[in-house]
Structures are given as structure tokens and as C-alpha cells.
């Protein structure tokens, strides 16, 4: 998302948008929190007290310590430890990083596929358009989680276990992207069909400018702000979907902790009274999804008041 954001930022990051953000406390706090958490997650290597990928840094004697406890060797665990004696805070930071990575990639892939198909279908129409839109209808009528599950299931069947574990991350990204591309395609298609009829596009076509050039230099920029709005809301959804898949044990393998798989582990220890193992990652997931959502809501209203119901 941030990648798509940067080149066009100077075009519509106008001062009134910034001012609107400043006058909306909910959006501002959400944006700051979301940014803060994103930075913390991306900087997990530096910020986390313990590297959870390094087994030597986990101490099995310190397993399942409650929040605020001090370990056998004097390590302090502000949020407690997990069943393998890993510091929860560190695990959560690394977990959020994985979730974020999957979420951002999925949104990026979904947007890339959706925008490309939307542009092509909207511009050229015809049989291709009809076929793609029917396929989109089918995708839309099935719940995203089911599509993601099915794709993951097929991947597991085709690949053997070791191969699957190695490419589990991209599989999850593709599974999630497959269930969210439709929205981009439909929106961009509609906008393209509107834009295509405008005089400047006709003029460009008459003067012999190629279709590809028209699509990229003229039409694409006009579709970016709705795409950005969809992407923001989708980021929250994608992260929640990833967490759900990992919780079900079909997403990211347990060797690579994501928030979902942390919660899955925590769920098993719920009845032992070790609530923090599930609840802390859960709360982090919730707060992150909520802030991204609230920011997305604000963005939608700020960029296009007409879109507001």
C-alpha cells in the first residue's frame, strides 16, 4: 500500500486532506496508532527484547509465566511467556510483522490483479469483459474465507508437506488475494468505462496514442484514490483473514509465528488459566484491525464524500 501511495502522494495529498485529518481526532489517533504499530512490527528485529526465531534465547524453564513475571535467570517478561518460554511481547511483535507482511502482500497482489483486469475489461469490453465479470460474480458469491481455504487445500494436495511448508507464505498471500480482487476489478472497470468516453481520451485515441499508454497515463491515475480507499479497508480484512486461516492451522506454519498462530497456541492453554497467551495477541490483532479500519473510513469520506452512504 505504501508503495502505491508514494508516487501519487504529491498529487492529492493536498492541505485540506491533511487539515481534515487534523480535525478528526478518531482518525488522527487511529492513523498514529496504526503507524506506530506498523513501525514496531517492521522493526521487530531491533525492538523486540528477544529474537523468537533463536531457540537459544527461549528458556523452557520460563514457560507460561504470567504477565510481569521475572524468569529463572532474571529476565523480565512484561506480557508473560508462551508455552515454549518465549517472551510474549517479542513473539507478538514478530507475529504482527508476519501478519502485516502477509496482509500487505495480499492487498498488493489483489489490487494489482484487480486493477489490471478492471482496466482491460473496462477499456476493451467484449467477450473477455463478459467472462471476467462472470468469474468475478462467482468469486463474489462465495465467502472469502471459503475461497482462501479451498486454495490452501488445493496447494496442500498438489505439493508434498515439505514443499508446502516452504512456500506456505506465498500460498496464503495468493489465497487471500484471490478472494479480494473482485472489488478492485469492478470499481476500476466502472471508472474506466466512464473515463474512456471522455473527450481527452477520445482525442488521445484519434491522435494515435496506443491503448496501453492511454490506460497507464490517463485512466489509471483517475482510479487511484478509490483503489487506495478499498486497499485500506482490505488491509484490515486481509490481516483478519490471515489470522483466521492461521488460527485454523491451515495458514502460516507454526514455525513462523503470526498473530493467528499465536492465538491458536494460546487457545490450547485457555483452560489452564493462561489467558494471556491468547488474549494479548488477540487484543493486538483487534487494535490493529480497528485502527486501520477507522483510518480507512475517514479516508473514504475525506477523499470522496459522495461514497458515504
Amino acid at each position: 500500500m505504501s508503495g502505491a501511495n508514494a508516487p501519487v502522494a504529491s498529487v492529492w495529498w493536498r492541505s485540506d486532506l491533511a487539515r481534515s485529518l487534523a480535525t478528526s481526532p478518531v482518525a488522527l489517533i487511529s492513523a498514529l496508532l496504526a503507524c506506530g504499530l506498523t513501525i514496531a512490527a517492521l522493526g521487530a528485529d531491533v525492538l523486540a527484547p528477544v529474537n523468537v526465531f533463536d531457540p537459544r534465547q527461549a528458556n523452557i524453564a520460563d514457560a507460561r509465566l504470567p504477565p510481569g513475571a521475572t524468569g529463572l535467570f532474571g529476565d523480565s517478561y512484561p506480557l508473560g511467556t508462551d508455552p515454549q518460554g518465549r517472551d510474549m511481547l517479542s513473539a507478538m511483535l514478530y507475529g504482527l510483522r508476519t501478519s502485516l507482511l502477509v496482509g500487505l502482500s495480499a492487498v498488493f497482489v489483489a489490487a494489482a490483479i484487480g486493477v489490471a483486469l478492471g482496466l482491460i475489461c473496462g477499456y476493451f469490453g467484449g467477450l473477455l469483459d463478459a467472462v471476467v465479470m462472470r468469474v468475478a460474480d462467482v468469486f463474489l458469491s462465495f465467502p472469502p474465507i471459503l475461497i482462501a481455504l479451498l486454495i490452501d487445500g488445493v496447494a496442500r494436495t498438489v505439493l508434498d508437506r515439505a514443499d508446502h511448508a516452504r512456500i506456505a507464505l506465498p500460498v496464503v498471500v495468493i489465497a487471500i488475494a484471490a478472494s479480494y480482487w473482485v472489488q478492485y476489478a469492478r470499481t476500476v472497470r466502472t471508472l474506466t468505462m466512464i473515463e474512456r468516453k471522455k473527450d481527452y481520451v477520445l482525442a488521445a485515441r484519434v491522435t494515435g496514442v496506443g491503448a496501453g499508454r492511454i490506460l497507464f497515463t490517463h485512466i489509471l491515475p483517475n482510479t487511484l484514490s478509490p483503489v487506495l480507499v478499498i486497499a485500506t479497508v482490505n488491509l484490515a480484512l486481509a490481516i483478519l483473514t490471515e489470522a483466521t486461516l492461521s488460527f485454523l492451522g491451515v495458514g502460516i506454519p507454526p514455525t513462523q509465528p503470526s498473530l493467528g498462530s499465536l492465538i491458536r497456541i494460546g487457545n490450547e492453554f485457555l483452560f489452564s488459566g493462561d489467558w494471556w497467551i491468547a488474549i494479548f495477541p488477540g487484543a493486538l490483532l483487534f487494535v490493529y484491525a480497528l485502527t486501520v479500519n477507522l483510518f480507512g473510513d475517514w479516508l473514504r469520506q475525506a477523499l470522496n464524500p459522495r461514497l458515504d452512504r
Partner: protein
Amino acid sequence: MVFMLIRAGQTAGVLLAAALVSFLLFRFVGDPVNNIVGQGASVEERAATREALGLNDPAIVQFSRFVGRAVQGEFGVSYRFSQPVADLIGQRLPATAELTLAAMLVALGLGVPLGMWTAIKPRGVLTQTLLTLSLIGVALPTFLIGIVLILVFSVWLGWLPAFGRGAVTNLGWWTTGLLTTSGLRALILPALTLGLFQMTLIMRMVRSEMLEILRSDHIRFSRARGLRRPALIYRHAFRNALTPLVTIVGLQFGNVFAFSIVVETVFQWPGLGLLVIQAIQFADVPLLAAYLLLVALTFALINLAVDLVNAVIDPRIRQEAL
């Protein structure tokens, strides 16, 4: 009539497409021969099995055979459970059906009245609270709701069970948990978890529909006719909100079906969802293929039901349909 034929055609098309995906999955994903005779079988054994399974026939013949068997409920034997897939699904279906219906009941029973309330009293404290909560609720994944409910009501308070279906009664063709206290108690938390998210959706939908209809001309005219408030709200406004509501609820049924997988995992509810998760983890292709077809069939039936109910409610649709 034409309308109905077109809808029936569409439904058949979707089912056939699902059957095709299901067949491709069944036939080409993973090697059925390997799964039957094992990796170490000889070339002759393999060839014999291939011939016996009809895998040498043209694809179209195989597909027809697949569809023909599917119609009779034959999906082969599960790799993981070594039982006919149809039997497995038959055993698990009642649990999922009861959970799904209970969740929809929760969602409709709470969502519709709350949505009406928030539309009729748009500035009330309860309205504002509910709207804020539903905004926050969007960021709460279903499985997390389940975990928190288990933590509070099972672990801390010890009021309700968190696992399984409780005691079930076998009716021969159906096992139900609705006839025993423990079965009903076991249903509460999973149904709440599954229904809560749908409830907020339905509430918001009812609210926006009602707000729009209450602003419409015919409601203004009904007010100008001096109709009493209950007649206005229920006979006129709510009735008009029903068509979109039924459509959305139909669509949401699909989501409930999907999320029952999640809820069944959280609560170890012995339904289809749990079965499917295992099927995915163990690449149990026959089971997956059958589940896919079952989902498509359920969706098709729900769409049909939505069309019929809407035709009953709205005379304009009825006229189109006949």
C-alpha cells in the same frame, strides 16, 4: 415464467461449474491411483487400478460418471477416515445445520429489532452505543469472539460448556442436541459467536433500509393519511424493508456456513466444518470435492428460497416471475 426459467438455468450453471471444479480436484489433484494402491505398487497393479477406476476413459465420460454418482450421493471413500464420504457428511451435517440455524436465529432475532430501533430513534443513546459497538465489532474476528466468550463464561465463570455438543438424541436419520439441557447449553456459546457478527451486519442493513424507506414518498403519504405509528412502521415501512433484508440474509447464509468452520474449530463442535479442516490438512480430496458440491448446492437452494420469499412479499417480483 421466463424469469424463473432463467434463474433455474443460472442455478444449474453454477452447480455444473462447481461440479467441474470438484471433478478436476478429484481427478487431477493428487493421484487417485496412488491413494488407493499405495506408492509401492507395481506398474501392472497401477494399470489395472486405472482401468478399474475408469481413468482411461475420455474426460467427458469420466465427468458424466462423476456427476451421475454425485447425484446419487456417491463421492467415494475418504482417504483419511476410510469411510464413504457420504456417510461422513451425513453424520456431521446435523451438528452444522443446528449450529447455523441457531446462529441465524440469534442474528435475526437481535439484529432486526435493534436495526429497527436504531432507525426509529436515530439520536437515542442506545442507537449511538450500538452503532459504535458495531463499528468496533467489524475489527473483531469471529474466532477471537469465541475465545473471549470461552474465557469469560467457561473458564472464569464456569457457566457454560466450551467443547462439543453435549448429550445428543439420535432420531435415526438425524442426531439433535436440541432435546437435552446439556445439548442446548452447549449450543449457546457457539451460536452466539457465529451469530454476533451477522447480527451487527443485519442491524446495520435493517437500519439503513428503514431510514431510506421512512424518508420515502409513500411513507410521507401514509403519514398524511393519518395512519397510526405501528401500522406505519410495521405494515408499511418494515414490509418494504423485507425484500432487501431477505436477499442479504440469503447471501449471509453463505458466510455463516463458511464461518461455521471457524466456530466449530474454536468450540470443537463435531460438524462439517471440523471435518473440512481435517480434510484440508490431510489433503483428503474426495471429502473436499464433496464438501465443495454441498456448499454450491446449499447456496443454490438458498438463492432459490430467497427468490420465492421475495416473490411472496413483492407483487412486482411475483408478476415478473409468473
